[in-house]
């Protein structure tokens, strides 16, 4: 299709006005050579302005704009109006919009995705994928699962909340007498890092943090990397929040915080780093290590290229292993209320498995794409320039993956888990009490 001269919007309108057969011509102008599905473009369609909502602020907003400019060059008939959603505040915006004045295309998080799909607020993309001859096999299986509702895909994966790696500052390691080449492979390593590298001033206030614990997510990650599955088959009814392995993980996180001076102390050290997607305390030198996604390589390149860091696998518990937990995905979805679903699909395709995806993920951000093929030669050349840890990342990615179930109850369940975690951290409940409370509540939610 890109061989064809794109029909300008004005020309096109003139064509319609003149009653000419231009529109038919456009429809007939199917490329003679069939291209790979993920780069193929749909036949030119009516000029359309589409609204596209996303949650990528800061540097990534700029990066996304360059990709959208490219899209505009390929598809001059589609004018994209991007809207950056606030986060927090994203959920109420997206949910009310789905019911009313919906965008044509939007990123949506698994927690909101499932209820929206369940209530019929999203369009199935099954037929569109079939028409484009794309199958789910193109994606990593865990990520692809996150687009499914009752066996039907209601979106395409855009970004997965996965591939958590351990980043550490080599100089800090060396200064504390640790091996700068060794990260942290098991929990005891992480405990050690937290104790050795956290420093306090004379009044006992925290100065520097050894490791940045990520709140209740650390517990979730820890549970799965300790060989347990909250919603899995461990118990007859499938829900095992109060399992010993889960408890062990929670106690580990409590201990980790304690080594950083406790909940408030760690909070004080991390003050102002609410949105770690856009920068993080390790990059700023406030902390020595962090668990973060592979995109952080790109953030470091942008913000502090001289940072003496290294990355590796994120540690696991005594009963677990280095698996990759896919907690959630940001999917691209077309709301049922979309005004221009066809044009929206053209953009969704471009960004999720077309050239836009390749460019945004692999070339610009230097992080693995959601599509397996894009992470292999010859596509990965630029990524390897940006990201010296490409092979490490792929090793994790191609290792064992576990994804949380897509359920319209997942949001409610995770609220309970988060609350249980807070109860423990704010010393309202003991670990045991919080867990048995959470067990009961989550059982009730899924009942």
């Amino acid at each position, binding site marked *: 299709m890109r061989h064809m001269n794109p029909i300008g919007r004005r020309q096109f309108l003139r064509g319609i006005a003149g009653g000419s057969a231009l529109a038919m011509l456009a429809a007939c102008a199917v490329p003679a050579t069939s291209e790979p599905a993920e780069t193929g473009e749909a036949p030119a369609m009516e000029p359309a302005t589409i609204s596209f909502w996303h949650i990528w602020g800061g540097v990534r907003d700029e990066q996304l704009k360059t990709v959208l400019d490219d899209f505009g060059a390929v598809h001059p008939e589609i004018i994209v109006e991007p809207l950056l959603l606030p*986060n927090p505040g994203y959920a109420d915006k997206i949910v009310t919009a789905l019911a009313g004045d919906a965008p044509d295309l939007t990123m949506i998080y698994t927690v909101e995705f499932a209820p929206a799909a369940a209530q019929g607020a999203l369009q199935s993309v099954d037929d569109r994928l079939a028409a484009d001859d794309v199958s789910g096999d193109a994606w990593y299986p865990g990520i692809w699962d996150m687009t499914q509702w009752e066996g039907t895909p209601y979106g395409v994966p855009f970004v997965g909340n996965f591939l958590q790696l351990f980043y550490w500052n080599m100089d800090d390691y060396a200064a504390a007498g640790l091996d700068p080449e060794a990260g942290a492979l098991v929990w005891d390593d992480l405990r050690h890092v937290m104790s050795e590298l956290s420093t306090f001033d004379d009044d006992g206030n925290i100065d520097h943090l050894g490791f940045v614990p990520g709140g209740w997510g650390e517990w979730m990650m820890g549970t799965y990397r300790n060989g347990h599955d909250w919603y899995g088959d461990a118990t007859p009814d499938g829900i095992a929040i109060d399992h010993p392995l889960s408890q062990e993980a929670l106690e580990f996180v409590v201990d980790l915080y304690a080594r950083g001076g406790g909940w408030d102390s760690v909070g004080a050290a991390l003050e102002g780093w609410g949105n770690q997607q856009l920068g993080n305390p390790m990059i700023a030198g406030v902390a020595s290590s962090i668990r973060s996604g592979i995109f952080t390589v790109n953030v470091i390149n942008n913000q502090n290229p001289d940072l003496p860091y290294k990355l590796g696998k994120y540690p696991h518990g005594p009963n677990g292993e280095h698996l990759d937990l896919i907690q959630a995905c940001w999917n691209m979805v077309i709301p049922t209320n979309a005004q221009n679903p066809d044009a929206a699909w053209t953009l969704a395709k471009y960004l999720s498995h077309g050239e836009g995806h390749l460019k945004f993920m692999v070339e610009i951000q230097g992080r693995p794409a959601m599509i397996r093929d894009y992470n292999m030669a010859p596509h990965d050349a630029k990524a390897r320039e940006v990201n010296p840890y490409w092979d490490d990342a792929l090793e994790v990615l191609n290792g064992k993956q576990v994804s949380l179930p897509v359920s319209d109850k997942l949001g409610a369940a995770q609220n309970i888990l988060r609350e249980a975690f807070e109860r423990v951290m704010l010393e309202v409940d003991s670990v045991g009490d919080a867990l048995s409370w959470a067990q009961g509540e989550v059982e009730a939610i899924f009942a």
Partner: protein
Amino acid sequence: MRVAESVSPLARDGPSWRYRRSTRQVLRMSAVHLALVATGFLFLLPLLWMVSTSLKSLTQQAAWPPEWIPQPFVWRNYPDAAAFLPLARYTLNSLTITVLFVIGTLLSCPLIAYAFARIRFPGRDFLFIVLIATIMLPGVVRLIPTYLMFRQLGFLNTYLPMVLPAFFGSPLFIFLLRQYFRTFPEELADAARMDGASEIGILYRIFMPMSGPALAVITIFAVQSQWNDFVDPLIYLNKERMRTLAVGLYYFRAYQDTTNWGQMMAAATMMTAPILILFALFQRYFIQGVALTGMKG
């Protein structure tokens, strides 16, 4: 009606009876002054802190103990905040809504208030009680059906949900105006009627020109309510270029990668300043207006 009486005493500086100027009295008054100075200072401190922070660098914001005088003055926080989010655009949007709302209010409320104040007809008193009742209705009860109604009408992503209701009169403003109109002698309207003036004529030629203060009060209230309104724009507007200042300010925190209180306070100051300027210019009406809302009908 005691509206007129209760407005005028405001101009007076306290009660007129005389104290015996004993030493005890002097001491006591000094103590009252001192206590008021301290409390007044306490009330103004947050505002001073807002402005002070808005002129500080990131490092100085975090200084402990806190410092009051920015060193150096970081004026850049203001243009930076305005560049970070299109605050100029948001201001224009807030202004648009506010102006349209005020127009609607000034078109509808005097008419309705006049009918309640000076036209006798069956059902009027009952409807007036209904009006009072709607002032007391918790607004949240209306939230969802009103949202659904405006959605059905295709008003999402327009300013109509904020602006349109003004053209149907706001109960509190109608009430205030009605009270004011009632202070005019009955004979005023009667005499005009004898001269063949229509009711519309009486309202616009006689009542309105005499009601400057009351109209100023409801205008100021209307401006305040729309400039500050958060929930309606939050619910009804989904386009970035349509956002209002209140919502934009809230999003300020959501978009920043590190919390820059200086920029945030600069944005807050920019949002607060117009209201404070308005207050400085029309102080009397602000105070009178608030005083009036407390008057029993």
